[in-house]
């Protein structure tokens, strides 16, 4: 048995490598080997040459163009968001009744819970930010491309295997069970000790997948730092670098310090699981060591996820308030301050673990302090809108929704930062409510603001306005119903991460499910709208679709869009290859 298995694997692997070799030979034939040089040296070909990119599917597999890679990240994040969203809809369905009547098994619930968290944070959150950053940062700072275009492509292509590994437990593979460790992967459960199922290879695969996604994020971060430092156009100085690039730069710095640490901790955990080391065993380093390492990564991670969305808000919101961002400098400073402080608060996730009370107090102090720069930003957004000429377009609605939800998410966080309050609320639904106000109500809302705002830029078409507004209102109301119900559940003492609960919590859980259903409907509308509008939406008729010139708030990426429109109007070369990328499509017949 063993031998035939190995033999089969060898044959498969050999065949696969041969296939790769054949593919490479074909692609190489098409290429004329005009080398790109280290940082992308100019070749001086006309922009219309067909030689630059192969056609069809192969183009997407071989592209190193930052815009293509941005779109790939976007598509990937969307798929992950749908998967994570469907998982949580199953969980919310389960939670409509106190017993496990719907899914039938708490084990399955725990698997969904784990996968939902990891999918949303690592496969949706980080990639959707990379999508915006890849597409826009080079355009905004006037760079030709990313500093290392091929590393950029590697960073993206690591993600699909990462997703397959993370979801492996759900595939019908023999003896591979999904992880049930929750996204925090606390030892000793995650180390696979005890009588449960968590010694299973499904957990190893999940850890490997997570490790890969970390490698990907780190490569991306190095690339953004290099790009923003070295590839700026001459007229873009540090003093007038835009706010979005500032947040990407800060985020990349955080990634650079946080993700390698997660990677190392994951490797230690894998060694504990498979090779008998005792890093996190009670007789070795101890389970608390895992918590320290995990949260030293984990808290910066939440800011890794929130800073660029804050950048999107700071970038987009002023366009529809008819004024420049209020206190630009202070928004930048507060970004940097958050970046630094975020490494000094990790133990606020461990207040109830019995760590030294003096340590606890200092972490409480820094956690309260980090609320200050966050509040600075909030006040700056509000003062930007104050007395402005506000246009309630869909992106603006999502921006305002962001600010509103961020206020609730932030304030609930400040309460958690206070030790006595946290000892009561820790591991209740209050915490779940707190961070979902931020990850859903703020981060995802900013993503949507960005998607609607740059939709014309990327596709050359308009989305359907009324559908977009329906999406916003369903989400705004749905988010607040779902997650406020969770805050209340937490006050009532409902612990988090359970498939079952006492009957007294039923009503609020049903309310939360109702809100989640609104989010679900809104999400379907969003997907439909983006998809259909990309294919057949009304064409954008001007290089300044948001009429930013009128208020003198134009930005570089729209200049690029304008030039691109004009040159393609002048030189209609009727590109014949049909792409899935409507951005090209829109110019074909213009």
């Amino acid at each position, binding site marked *: 048995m063993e031998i035939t298995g190995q033999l089969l694997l060898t044959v498969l692997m050999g065949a696969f490598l041969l296939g790769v070799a054949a593919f490479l030979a074909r692609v190489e034939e098409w290429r004329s080997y005009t080398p790109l040089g280290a940082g992308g040296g100019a070749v001086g070909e006309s922009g219309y040459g067909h030689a*630059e990119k192969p056609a069809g599917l192969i183009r997407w597999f*071989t592209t190193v163009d930052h815009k293509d890679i941005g779109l790939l990240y976007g598509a990937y994040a969307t798929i992950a968001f749908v998967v994570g969203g469907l998982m949580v809809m199953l969980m919310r369905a389960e939670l409509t009744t106190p017993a496990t009547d719907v899914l039938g098994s708490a084990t399955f619930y725990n698997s969904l819970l784990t996968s939902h968290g990891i999918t949303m944070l690592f496969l949706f959150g980080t990639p959707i930010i990379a999508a915006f950053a890849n597409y826009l940062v080079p355009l905004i700072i006037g760079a030709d491309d990313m500093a290392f275009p*091929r590393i950029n492509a590697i960073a993206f292509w690591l993600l699909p295997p990462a997703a397959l590994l993370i979801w492996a437990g759900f595939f019908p593979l023999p003896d591979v069970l999904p992880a049930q460790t929750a996204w925090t992967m606390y030892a000793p459960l995650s180390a696979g000790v005890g009588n449960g199922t968590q010694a299973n290879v499904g957990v190893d695969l999940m850890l490997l997948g997570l490790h890969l996604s970390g490698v990907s994020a780190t490569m991306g971060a190095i690339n953004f730092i290099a790009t923003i430092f070295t590839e700026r156009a001459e007229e873009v100085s540090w003093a007038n670098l835009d706010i979005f690039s500032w947040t990407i730069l800060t985020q990349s710095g955080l990634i650079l310090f946080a993700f390698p640490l997660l990677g190392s901790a994951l490797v230690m955990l894998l060694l504990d699981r498979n090779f008998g080391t005792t890093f996190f065993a009670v007789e070795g380093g101890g389970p608390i060591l895992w918590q320290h390492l995990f949260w030293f990564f984990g808290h910066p991670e939440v800011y890794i996820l929130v800073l660029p969305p804050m950048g999107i808000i700071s970038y987009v919101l002023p366009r529809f308030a008819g004024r420049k961002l209020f206190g630009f400098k202070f928004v930048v400073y507060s970004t940097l301050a958050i970046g630094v402080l975020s490494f000094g608060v990790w133990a606020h996730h461990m207040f109830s673990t019995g760590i030294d009370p003096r340590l606890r107090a200092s972490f409480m102090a820094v956690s309260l302090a980090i609320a200050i720069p966050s509040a600075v930003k909030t006040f700056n957004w509000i003062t930007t809108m104050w007395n402005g000429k506000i246009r309630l377009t869909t992106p603006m609605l999502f921006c305002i929704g962001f600010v509103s939800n961020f206020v609730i998410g932030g304030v609930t966080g400040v309460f958690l930062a206070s030790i006595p309050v946290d000892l009561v609320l820790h591991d209740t639904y209050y915490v779940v409510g707190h961070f979902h106000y931020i990850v859903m109500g703020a981060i995802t809302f900013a993503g949507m603001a960005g998607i609607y705002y740059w939709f014309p830029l990327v596709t050359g078409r308009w989305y359907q306005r009324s559908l977009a507004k329906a999406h916003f209102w369903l989400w705004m109301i749905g988010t607040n119903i779902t997650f406020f119900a969770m805050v209340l559940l937490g006050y009532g003492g409902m612990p988090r991460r359970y498939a079952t609960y006492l009957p007294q919590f039923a009503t609020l859980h049903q309310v939360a499910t109702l809100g989640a259903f609104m989010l679900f409907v809104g999400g379907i509308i969003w997907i439909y709208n983006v998809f259909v509008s990309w294919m057949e939406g009304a064409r954008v008729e001007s290089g300044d679709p948001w009429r930013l010139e009128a208020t003198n708030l134009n930005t570089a990426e729209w200049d690029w869009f304008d030039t691109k429109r004009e040159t*393609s109007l002048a030189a209609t070369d009727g590109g014949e*290859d049909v792409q899935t990328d409507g951005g*090209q499509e829109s110019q074909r017949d213009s």
Partner: protein
Amino acid sequence: MDENPGLSEEYRMASPWPLFVALGLPIAEVGILFGLVPLAVGGLVLFCGAIAGILREAEYAASGWRALAALSLVIAGGGLALLYADGATESDLVVRAYSMVGAGVLMFVGGVGGELFARDAEPAI
């Protein structure tokens, strides 16, 4: 293609290698972690081969074959380190060590062979 002049349009914007770097790494990781020899060897060959391809393409290395041979030494070295570690721990690292050494030897032979035989196919500069 109806790409347009703008910023990045004037550069060659395709490379076949990144995809395979990204495929090789997880295959090799899974192979080494679980001691599955074919995956470990195949994954390492794919991973290092694609890296060598990139180094050649970006002109960091004059010859992809030589780059591959250099990488093979790193992998074989890693395998030897595992072999050494095997003596120091209770867990069984031998299969993993030998698959790394084996992959290293394979790539070394491939690299040297390629350098000797495939080089003249390219224009002599």
